[in-house]
């Protein structure tokens, strides 16, 4: 949502096609692979368009630091990081305000589906490394995370997948790519549970009328189905 829009990104939709040829309600190509980090208890690699994320789960295991132990349930520790070479301008290593906030909302996006009470006093570490960023990094990471948690054998009441609904050239569109995110009007990452389509993450920046917001939620509900399918297919393929 920068102010200086380069000429080539002024028109983001032409003949109902987006700059990468997608329709308004079409996701970018999705690729999910399970078990990519041998030393982790669960792991997944995901590509959604040009956004690439590696996710690893370690645990359930002894909880560190000790003073954060919850005697009634496992604690989910989430660490989201953009690798230094994942964007145009190098990202300095180490946590930032942005990455801390995303770690928190990601944790909240996943906690409600995990049976944390089955592992009292333990910790589950979830690492999300953004290898290449082209918009939608938190949504992409969440989609991979629930696959990695399943791979680690952690019991869940459903999968969580996430995408974004945005507004570009005054039209609603699914799963924004980099230029659409940078030069569009609105971006709304949203995460849902596979079983009931309830919402576990929703953030929005930009501009929505009440009607647009309502429509966006409907669009998300539909658009997210292929992600659940991709998650299931990846797990199935791994165990075949």
């Amino acid at each position: 949502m920068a102010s200086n829009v380069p000429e080539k990104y002024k028109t983001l939709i032409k003949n109902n096609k987006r700059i990468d040829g997608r329709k308004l309600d079409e996701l970018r190509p999705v690729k999910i692979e399970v078990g990519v980090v041998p030393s982790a208890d669960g792991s997944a690699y995901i590509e959604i368009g040009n956004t690439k994320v590696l996710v690893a789960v370690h645990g359930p295991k002894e909880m560190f630091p000790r003073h954060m132990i919850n005697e009634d349930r496992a604690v989910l520790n989430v660490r989201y990081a953009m690798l230094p070479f994942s964007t145009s301008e190098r990202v300095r290593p180490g946590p930032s305000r942005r990455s801390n906030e995303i770690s928190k909302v990601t944790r909240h996006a996943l906690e409600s589906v995990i049976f944390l009470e089955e592992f009292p006093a333990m910790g589950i570490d979830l690492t999300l490394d953004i290898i290449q960023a082209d918009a939608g990094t938190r949504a992409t990471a969440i989609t991979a995370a629930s696959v990695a948690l399943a791979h680690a054998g952690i019991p869940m009441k459903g999968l969580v997948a996430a995408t974004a609904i945005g507004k570009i050239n005054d039209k609603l569109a699914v799963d924004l790519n980099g230029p659409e995110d940078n030069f569009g009007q609105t971006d709304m990452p949203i995460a849902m549970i596979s079983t009931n389509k309830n919402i576990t993450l929703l953030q929005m920046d930009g501009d929505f009328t009440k009607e647009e917001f309502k429509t966006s939620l409907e669009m998300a509900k539909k658009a997210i189905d292929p992600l659940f399918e991709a998650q299931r297919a990846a797990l199935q393929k791994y165990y075949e």
Partner: protein
Amino acid sequence: MALLYQNRQYIRNNIAKKREDGRTNEQFRDITIETGIIGRAEGSARVKIGDTEIIAGVKTEIGKPYPDSPSEGVIMVNSEFSALASPDFENGPPREDSIELSRVVDRGIRESKTVDVEKLCIEKGEKVWMVFVDITIVNHDGNLIDAAGIGAITALLTAQLPKLNEDGTVEREEFEGNLPITQIPVPVTSGLINNTIITDMSKDETECSDARFTVTTIENENYCAMQKAGPSELTEEQMLKIADIAQKESKRIRAAIKTAVKKHKA
């Protein structure tokens, strides 16, 4: 002090029938907005929502623009839990909450283009105004995000840019006009307690809540920012309902902000 388990359960079980302080589910506590409270700041405000109190102050500096936006000034909103506000902050896990508060208010101001940052450019690629909005929590009785958001925009609306001398130094005691503010975003947060939607939660209610949803509305009734928080899921209907409440309540709050700013400038 964290709530006892019994108190938590009591609040949760009874919330559908009545709130501790007798409010209706969607009812805000009294809001008071004062301006011009800090003489050293370029703009300032004190906001109280019930017993919750925050102070917001605007300061300006001259700095270098970011390489990828050479003709834009910089606006930064920062909120800190002072140890003043609650002993819990010392021991508990406050940092993450503090960061979320800070980020939500920051994004609500920055990404909604509330400040026309292009007007803050002094010399392209070299010198721009950097505008800092710092928010201090003085007393914490819940709903910090709304209080902080109201404080931030009020402080910005009353802020003035210091005079720039010919030689590039800043004259701190003279001013050259207002900040270029384009709109008045107002955040309204409701929570879910035991499946009941509750607006403007107190600190105790917040501790009993399962999820929160902040919706920021601008004058034309459009939404400019949203943030769900808390571990529980929300249904589509609950979200739409909370967005409706925000649209409605934000009008009244925006009117109060405008009154305070008008009074300040008179």
